[in-house]
């Protein structure tokens, strides 16, 4: 298991100029669309505060709400399963499919199923899985993970999609017309809905009061799947709970506005009970969430409603692409969640940030993302997961900067005309800074020297 090297990956991403420019502009455009919505709604900041408070209340009473959800969902005729971890989730899903003799599964977008690496698990057991969300389908056909939780193929240009479809579903690879490509996926996928024995969805929200769950989509794929085969399985992270239906007023108003700058998704579906003669199964998944709940500094990350607004606004994410984070969850939310999955593997992620705080400001549930990023850096340093170069440089810096004499010697040496930044400021002296930037010129004297010379009498 190798450490993810975000900087290295970002370098490659940036080199592909057309792709990188489009990626940055497209996501910035989504950020601007979000702004238009938030500015048009006088109660926007009030809703953020409410959404945050509702989530915090729910998470601090999560045990009770989970039981209430299970009680009501079961009374409605759903079957509720509990999965401790990814492996158990996959096993449960497989068992359900096996019991129903289902070998073809259509699924809509669910980051949770990606997190659990469900697809390879099921495919190895003979289940054919069709991702039906267009972005996820492109990525599936290209054997690449999704790069953004809302727009999974945002890093691809139409030519890339044409190439993938040409190679896999028999379209004309030279035809890059976007409506043609979308129509091709529509026609290619449609027979699968009709013949699949099972459908899977995720859930954006699960309502304790009614034992129901909500799926917000634009394409119609989730509802085609859920309403055709006789078996519907929904994977739901335990943090998706909300207490009552009325709370959806707050969250549904904020979700699509934050994600895409549209007031609501084209389809917002509420599943409370299976269609007569069919089965509906819910798999409630922990996979580290209950543990994260107990982390004083990091439990707020569980408020996340997976809108992706943090990714859209993050200047680092926009210029490096989701795949450079090496995880299902990328961008700012990924940076604060991924270390809980594997601290060592993801130890570079909290440093793939300038701590600018824009993410925190757009988050509809007011997760203090940049503050958690800062805290993760401390955890990583304490657990000895910092690269040796940095660790050593900080140790030296800590000593030099704590001693007026050592500090003055270092600063005056630098200001005396050496044309590189002091080692304790740069750690990788000159090479990294100077690749694409000029270094500052060295002045004739430091401020302190000037002060002592010109104001020395005032000591």
């Amino acid at each position: 298991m190798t450490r993810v090297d975000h900087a290295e990956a970002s370098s490659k991403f940036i080199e592909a100029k057309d792709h990188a420019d489009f990626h940055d502009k497209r996501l910035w455009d989504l950020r601007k669309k979000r702004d238009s919505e938030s500015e048009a709604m006088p109660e926007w900041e009030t809703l953020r505060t409410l959404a945050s408070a509702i989530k915090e209340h729910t998470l601090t009473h999560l045990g009770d709400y989970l039981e209430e959800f299970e009680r009501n969902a079961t009374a409605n005729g759903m079957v509720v399963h509990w999965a401790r971890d990814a492996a158990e989730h996959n096993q449960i899903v497989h068992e359900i499919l096996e019991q129903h003799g289902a070998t073809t599964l259509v699924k809509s977008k669910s980051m949770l199923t990606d997190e659990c690496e469900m697809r390879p698990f099921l495919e190895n057991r003979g289940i054919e899985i069709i991702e039906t969300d267009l972005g996820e389908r492109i990525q599936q056909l290209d054997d690449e993970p999704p790069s953004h939780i809302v727009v999974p193929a945002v890093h691809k240009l139409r030519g890339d999609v044409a190439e993938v479809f040409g190679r896999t579903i028999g379209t004309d690879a030279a035809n890059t017309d976007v409506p043609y490509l979308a129509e091709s996926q529509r026609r290619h996928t449609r027979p699968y809905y009709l013949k699949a024995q099972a459908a899977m969805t995720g859930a954006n929200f699960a309502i304790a009061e009614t034992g129901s769950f909500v799926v917000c989509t634009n394409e119609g794929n989730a509802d085609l799947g859920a309403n055709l085969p006789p078996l519907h399985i929904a994977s739901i992270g335990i943090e998706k709970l909300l207490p009552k239906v009325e709370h959806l007023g707050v969250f549904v108003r904020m979700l699509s506005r934050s994600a895409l700058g549209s007031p609501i998704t084209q389809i917002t579906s509420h599943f409370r009970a299976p269609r007569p003669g069919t089965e509906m199964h819910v798999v409630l998944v922990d996979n580290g969430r209950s543990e994260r709940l107990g982390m004083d500094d990091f439990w707020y990350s569980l408020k996340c409603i997976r809108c992706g607004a943090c990714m859209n606004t993050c200047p680092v994410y926009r210029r490096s692409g989701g795949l450079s984070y090496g995880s299902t969850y990328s961008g700012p939310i990924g940076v604060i969640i991924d270390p809980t999955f594997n601290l060592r593997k993801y130890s570079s992620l909290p440093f793939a940030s300038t701590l600018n705080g824009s993410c925190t400001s757009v988050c509809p549930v007011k997760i203090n993302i940049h503050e958690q990023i800062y805290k993760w850096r401390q955890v990583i340093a304490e657990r000895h997961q910092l690269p040796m170069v940095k660790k050593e440089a900080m140790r030296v810096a800590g000593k030099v900067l704590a001693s007026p004499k050592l500090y003055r010697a270092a600063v005056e040496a630098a200001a005396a005309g050496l044309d590189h930044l002091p080692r304790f400021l740069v750690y990788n002296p000159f090479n990294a800074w100077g690749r694409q930037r000029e270094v500052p010129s060295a002045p004739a004297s430091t401020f302190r020297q000037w002060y002592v010379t010109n104001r020395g009498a005032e000591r």
Partner: protein
Amino acid sequence: MKVALFIPCYIDAFFPEVGIATLELLERLGCKVDYPLDQTCCGQPMANSGCHADAHDTEALFARNFAGYDHIVTPSGSCAHHVRDQMTAIEQTPAVQAVRRNTRELVEFLHDVLGVREFPWAEFPHKVGLHIGCATLRGLREAKASEIDEPAFNKPQRLLSAVKGIEFVHPQRVDECCGFGGTFSVFEEPVSAKMGHDKVDDHHRAGAEYIVSPDMSCVMHQQGCARRAGLPLKFIHIAQVLNGARA
């Protein structure tokens, strides 16, 4: 009112003119300003790298140097933000808490404490792109951030508006981070440089002759990018403009 001046390491080393302008400006406004000679750094470089323990002694030195002052003023938003909101490697005695509480970035001090609105000696007849660093913007809340839906306010711009001849031009992405981010600028150089180049290009396209900022760390990075790209952009700290620099 006992006022002390904190000059961050990078200004001490590379931009002493910013420290000089800050001191002169405060004195013009009637402050008697001490400059503790044994000051070094606020601890931010270590703290931002997660090296809490390594920041301890530096933070302790800072607290000792600046004990007993009513106001500690610094021409650096990221340093002021660190001291006020993150200086926790050392024991939080009442004296330490007082030092933390009393530390202010220069614009905050001028705008909120002194309540200054006029700078009659100042004239800066140039097209100016104002850059507010992210710690100054979102950490110290010196202006409305573009993400937040609230009434507009902008303390650095308010002060600069009093300067004769100044003309503001606005980049398309008003407050997107410029990509300095401390050690980020070195350890994530590809993205950092791209962000810096994008930022200076944006200001240049908007017609800026000067980028004026309360944050010299950002300036250092943007200047590096602009010079490498051969852009005719000049950079100056807000203290220098408010103190009367003409260019």
